């Protein structure tokens, strides 16, 4: 007769292969630097899809003008072409002037975007309002 320990061990051994089969490589096994890319994904340009439901109100109160400017600027950038990269910087300066904003403030603001989720959500919402939904 098999011992109690053997019976439990058999149960575990039966379960382990299932466990091993269902592990998610993307989340549990980081690939090596030189591993080949995963299957191609179609990038979408479906502007009808809603990008974000609603903005966080807290950031808008403080950074409203810069948030609206950034949304407008990205929208304008994608509709324009430029003769040189410097012409892009010049157009940005002109747009900031027109909006009554300072270059230094804009640069400080833009540096915060990558680390503040609320700011990104607010810009995306403004972009959706001014550029996508119109």
């Amino acid at each position, binding site marked *: 007769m098999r011992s*109690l320990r053997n019976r439990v061990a058999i149960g*575990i051994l039966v379960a382990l292969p299932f466990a091993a089969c269902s592990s998610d490589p993307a989340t549990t096994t*980081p690939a090596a630097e030189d591993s080949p890319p995963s299957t191609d994904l179609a990038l979408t340009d479906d502007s009808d899809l809603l990008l974000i439901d609603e903005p966080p109100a807290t950031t808008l109160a403080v950074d409203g003008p810069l948030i609206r400017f950034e949304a407008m600027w990205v929208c304008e950038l994608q*509709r324009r*072409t430029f003769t040189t*990269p410097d012409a892009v910087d010049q157009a940005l300066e002109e747009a900031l002037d027109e909006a009554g904003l300072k270059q230094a403030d804009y640069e400080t603001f833009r540096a915060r975007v*990558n680390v503040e989720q609320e700011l990104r959500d607010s810009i995306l919402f403004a972009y959706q309002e001014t550029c996508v939904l119109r």
Partner: protein
Amino acid sequence: MRAQPTTGVASSLASWLGLAFCLTILLIHSTTLRSGAETETKGSPRFLAASSTGWVEGESRWVSLPWLATEGIQDFRVTALSTAPGVRVTYQQETLDHAAPQFGPDLGANEVDVTMLQVSTTTATPESWELEVSASWEYRGRRHEGATVIKVTTISAVTENPLQPLIDDATVTASGDGTDNWVDLAYLGLADLTTNVEVSVEGDLPVQYTSKLFSSLDHGDELVRGEIDSARIWFDPNRLGAGSHELTVTLQYTIDASTAVQVVSHPLLITVE
């Protein structure tokens, strides 16, 4: 001998425990698989630019491709390729073989940023060609990639029309809520400054404009050279009737500092499905 029944009960209990353990493991992992499939998005960014655009032959200009990161991604890179004759794509000096987002290669969730690339054409470039845009990024330690295609219409450099239409046909549907029946008529500005743009359709047709008698451009009423903007017109498919309809679109605008209003027209084929 008295130990025998106890061993039997213990043995049965052990079997049930083992089975219960197996089922629990299976349940946990089937749940993990299902939620994994739902959340495994590979961090795919969204391409926000239009899928078609216009280009003046022989020109070399920098274009901005906007992207939305749906998840936090790292080392986002964009390359573009066209096999059309005379088309060449180059990148900024900092990266040379790819374009990176303007504000750094890593993007936070819901961040919108643009990548710049220089597209050059020659007089040998065909009237219609495609620019294949590839992107790659790192998400949760793995590299992913995707691609999309932008259809480009080459505009003659000697055209006299400073407001070049990029759309000459569209389809509207008789079913649905009618939102699909707004047609975006895109125009490329070829003058240094085109202002007061008004777009309308000739004849007494079942259309609706963004203003009472005409549609203005979506993003202001002026275009600088190389800028593209659209005017929207709503077509009533039920009153137009099924089939194809050859219409004429009228454009009114002023050029540079002039106050003289110029009027031109272009054909538009509307198909009702």
